[in-house]
């Protein structure tokens, strides 16, 4: 049972990490355009750079 002392904090930390990642991804607008993102992955690297300046 001693293991619980650090196992539970680890579990909670991982959970919080997930929650943080979710909130971050939402704030940075990754859910704004779900259709476009799937296509953007297919563009050539140099073309992206050109259009992203």
């Amino acid at each position: 049972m001693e293991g619980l002392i650090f196992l539970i904090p680890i579990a909670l930390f991982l959970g919080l990490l997930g929650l943080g990642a979710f909130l971050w991804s939402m704030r940075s607008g990754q859910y704004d355009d779900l259709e476009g993102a799937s296509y953007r992955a297919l563009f050539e690297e140099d073309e992206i750079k050109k259009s992203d300046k």
Partner: protein
Amino acid sequence: MAVVKSQDSFDRKGTPLEHFLVEGLHCPSCIREIEGALQKNPIIKNVRLNLTTQRLAVEWSGDSPDVAANSDEVIKTLKDIGFNGYLFKDDPSAAEGDKEGRWLLICMGIAGFAMMNIMLLSVSDWAGTDMGDQTRGFFHWISALIALPASAVAGTPFFKSAYGSLKARSLNMDVPISLAVILSLLMSVMQTLNGGADTYYDAAVMLLFFLLIGRFLDRKMRNHARSTAHNLMSYRPSSAIIVTENGDTTNCAIELLNTEMVVRVAPGERIPVDGVIVSGTSEVDNSLVTGETIPVKSTLGDKVFAGTMNVNGALDIRVTALSGKTLLDEIIGLMETAEQGRAKYVRLADKAAQIYAPAVHLLALATFLGWIIFSTVGWEQSLITAIAVLIITCPCALGLAVPVVQIVASSRLFKNGILVKAPDGLERLAEIDTVAFDKTGTLTLGQPEIANADDIAPADLELAASLAKTSTHPLCRALIVASHERDIPTIATTSPLHEEPGMGLKATIDGKEIRLGNRDWCHVPMNIQKNTRYSELWLKVEGRDAVFLAFQDRLRKDAAEVVAWFQNKGFDVLLLSGDRPDVVSEVAEKLGISDYLGAAKPQDKIDRLEKLKAEGKKILMVGDGMNDAPALSASYVSISPSTASEISQNAADFIFQSQELDSIVRAYQVSKMSRKLVFTNFALAAIYNVIAVPFAAAGFLTPLIAAIAMSSSSILVTTNALRLNLVKLWKA
């Protein structure tokens, strides 16, 4: 990755951002093409296209960009690469809705996180029978540490709504939900303090999580419908061409127009203002305003109305009225009056809550009193049992019963091209017993079709088509369509063609002058072929009698079937039109509608609907024109096609996007089925309560049972709602 830089990430810096709506997006490479082309322009610092919403966000470079000129340039660039761009008129209410949706998502994330972690502890608690009391207490404390702050945040949507409802001295579904969450948490804390065994942290958080999923999806679906409806409206012109005193022309936003300004309207455009023609001659199609289908010849000194279509010939119009006296204002006035007459609809969920909430609270009270009076367990244990009753009565199934059905129904309709604008629209649509149609633009397409083609020699039709081919006049286009249908070749004449606005076309073919146009143009005296029924064109070949070409508005393909469907189901169907009585009666006869009203002004339409309403009828109004807008607000529920005037779309509860009218039948079918499913869901929740409540009242409830009951009942109502996808929809 630097590319995943959303519009938001540069939104927040506070730099000016402009949104455009892009029409004609069809493939992923459009993103690259548009962004690439715009990015090259030095006036633009950053650009991002959102494929989901079809909107383009542009950030200007420089400190004080000239927004108007830049916007024009963006629209021009888009046009050059083959897309139609429109400046997106921002809707503050939509932004507000976005914010709320975002907050719901955050709440959902927090509730989900809390639920998973508490479950982890709870499951080991339920399974670990040999767990020591200290470990159990430790687990409970950690659960409390997660559940209390998480519920305080994630529960705000419910707490706020419950508080609002209580303040208004009524009960909605959020009252029992909030109460169940707060009480179960309080009881659990009490248990934890006393070292008790039964805590309900998991049940409370799970309840929040499930309900938040429902809320979020509901909001998302509605936002989607609303933004699509809003997109439709942005396609309308936002600027007009004004003619200055020295004859120059400049662009000007419609909002900035003043009376006495002169506006130029090109052929084929909508007239943006009420005014008087100061130069030019053209035919004006008033159908959106009056329901009248034949374009009216308008010239110097004639009045024209905003929203009407200038068919041929440029017009210069002096703006007469901007506010207070335009036709539009009159219509808005009528609409507002009609709106006030509409009884406020009480939604099914609220009706259910009004029965359910007091019943549950009384039940809990009875349990408490029962235990206190008839047993010796003391008030503390009695209170715990009473709270257990509140938890187990499961607002979860009831709270999900309506929204889940609503989500499935709206997304099904959305796929069928129907937007649900009013949140309670589906519920009202299911109750109708009368359908009132407008004619022009609703039962008909608002496009002319040749009426006497069979009386015309194919050679004449071919000749007429060869002239008409180059013109954009609706009657000419109808001629081409008619020729196609009869396999008559439509090859534009190679001879030089002359077009006289408001009159017609003329060409010389094989040495003979040929004219296609109105009566005056072809020199046909008024006493030949008297005609007040049809739009007309004449074909005059030198040395021969003129040929009469009659046109009438075209019925939608499935109009007759749709009317018949409603009549077979026992609905009263009526036709209310602003068009001339003889045209209306002919259409009514063709469709088998016995109850019709022609030459109806907006007020007449309302009067008719009010009369039916007084007889207790619940009317579905289907209409598109500006003249229908008041009737749309006066009816019980209303549908407009997406080609409708802006004001009608605002008034309507539903908007359908297809050319076919069978969307109306489908919307009705879906709403009828949703109503049935909502009631089955209520029944399921009730049955569940009848079984579970006695156990809770008898004090047999454990946290495990509560968790299982809550999730299984949620799954049950959701699955039931999904049955809506199995319904076969009618197709004309």
